[in-house]
């Protein structure tokens, strides 16, 4: 299972990456896409929407299930990855390249509250039992 060390993670299996321009990209983890199986549909939040931390804001649908995606931190949506509409399978192929949406953080300090790779690995391990 791939858990890059330079990302932050949530208990609900989103990853968050602080980009050079101060925005935060969000996607779902390798573990999440593995559980869900082949992706068939992604519904992203609209640009401009203001999200609270933990707010339900997107849906990923696989051949097995549909699952909600939660905002890892508070912020305003500045971009949504339109490419996923026609190619949702890119989440399966490379979950850490296939970002879903970008946020302008309300307070980037919130990122520090998320899990690092080591804690997330432990979290995944604990959920397996």
């Amino acid at each position: 299972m791939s858990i890059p060390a330079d990302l932050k993670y949530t208990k609900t299996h989103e990853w968050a990456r602080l980009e050079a321009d101060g925005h935060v990209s969000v996607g779902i983890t390798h573990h999440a896409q593995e559980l869900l199986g082949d992706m068939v549909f992604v519904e992203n939040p609209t640009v401009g929407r203001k999200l609270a931390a933990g707010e339900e804001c997107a849906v990923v649908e696989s051949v097995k299930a549909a699952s909600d995606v939660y905002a890892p931190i508070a912020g305003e949506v500045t971009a949504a990855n339109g490419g996923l509409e026609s190619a949702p399978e890119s989440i399966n192929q490379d979950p850490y390249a296939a970002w879903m949406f970008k946020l302008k953080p309300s307070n980037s300090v919130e990122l520090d509250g998320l899990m690092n790779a080591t804690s997330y690995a432990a979290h995944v391990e604990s959920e397996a039992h």
Partner: protein
Amino acid sequence: MPFIPHTEADIATMLDSIGASSLDALFDEIPADLNCAGLGGIPPSLTEMAVTRLAHGRAAQDGFYSSFLGAGAYEHHIPAAVWQIVSRGEFYTAYTPYQAEASQGTLQLLYEYQTMMASLTGLDVSNASLYDGATALAEAVLMAVRANKAGVRRVLLPDTVHPRYRAVAQAMVKNQGIELVGVPFDKASGITDLAALEVLAGEAAALVIPQSNFFGALERVDALTDWAHAHAMLAVAVANPLALALLKPPGLWGEGTQTRGADICVGDGQPLGVPLSSGGPYFGFMTARQALVRQMPGRMVGRTVDLDGKPGFVLTLQAREQHIRRAKATSNICSNQGLLVTAATIHMALLGPEGLKNVALSSHANTRALIDKLVSLLGVERVFSSPFFHEAVIRVNIPVPDVLRALRAQGILGGYALGRDYPELGDCILVCATETKTEDDLEQYRQQLERILSRRNGRDPSVPPCAYK
């Protein structure tokens, strides 16, 4: 496993193995005041012969009327083959089967039904049916609100939509924080008033557009659809499916070159092979543009290929549904009506597009002929000026209940009294003549109405009472 209820011995064995002394002891944790002491009002049992006799007697009370009553449920000829085929054991189930893909025949039929409805309404996708027309409208309202990214929870619902549909939609959405806003109709034409819409403009997720409307009148669907889209609303059609055999399909509504047509179309499928049956069961239909498919409620059948490349049918897009998404499903109460859909599919297949169009045309022609006859009488006038499909409103100069009662006494159901739903139309009757009516039937109605009016208006009766009795 034989389908035999537990015997006394079975029950004793089971109670023994879990250590309960009796059934009452097993359930003794239920508070006594929650137990009902038996069902009151149930008469003693009857023999089959007695029940048959009772049921025949009750059925006879319905009488045999020449019906000009529509108002949402319409008498049409149903070819005998339709229900003969529907009654085959292979089709005889109310629901999509639980082990769906094992029932390829049922799925193929539903797929063909969906294809027919998509074609009839001019939209991309159809579900496998809903409970009835009224709940289909409520589901369309919920769907439009879900699809609204700005979170607007307000829908414009014209007063010309069937009053019962409006009541059901209101019951289903009011506790979900959705506001349904009425739109008045123009008193001269009987169709939705565009000027009134302008006054109501403001944020809304959708505009509902009936065709034909409750008065049988044809709405200006192109202008209404364009208006909805220009105000960032979805256009939700509520259509009589039979009317669509003649009229422009909702998927093509709108006049601009940029128009995308109505976004959702719902309605009651009863005119397509379902008998009146004192008001139900009927079935609801729903079609939509492809872009909204993930917001659709209900089951949907898709065509695919198996591992060997052979065609087959499956339930598809199930992530919308409650067994996958639970509380977040697009609907948790979207019962479908598999058996009635089976009838509708066979009915449409037997009639074909031309046959369906002919039924629609002769219903329209009969209603026109009837209205012409009736308004030629002193004391009767047409109320609305708009073109109509197979129903229209007349005003009479003596009390409506008296007219309908007197007609009924002559074996004629003269129509629907509008005063209950529209107090300002208390002297008006909604009249419908489908393809089942002959020239003689229309003439009988005219003669009897003439006699009733003359008597009440103090002129000599020219026609003796008798006709259908």
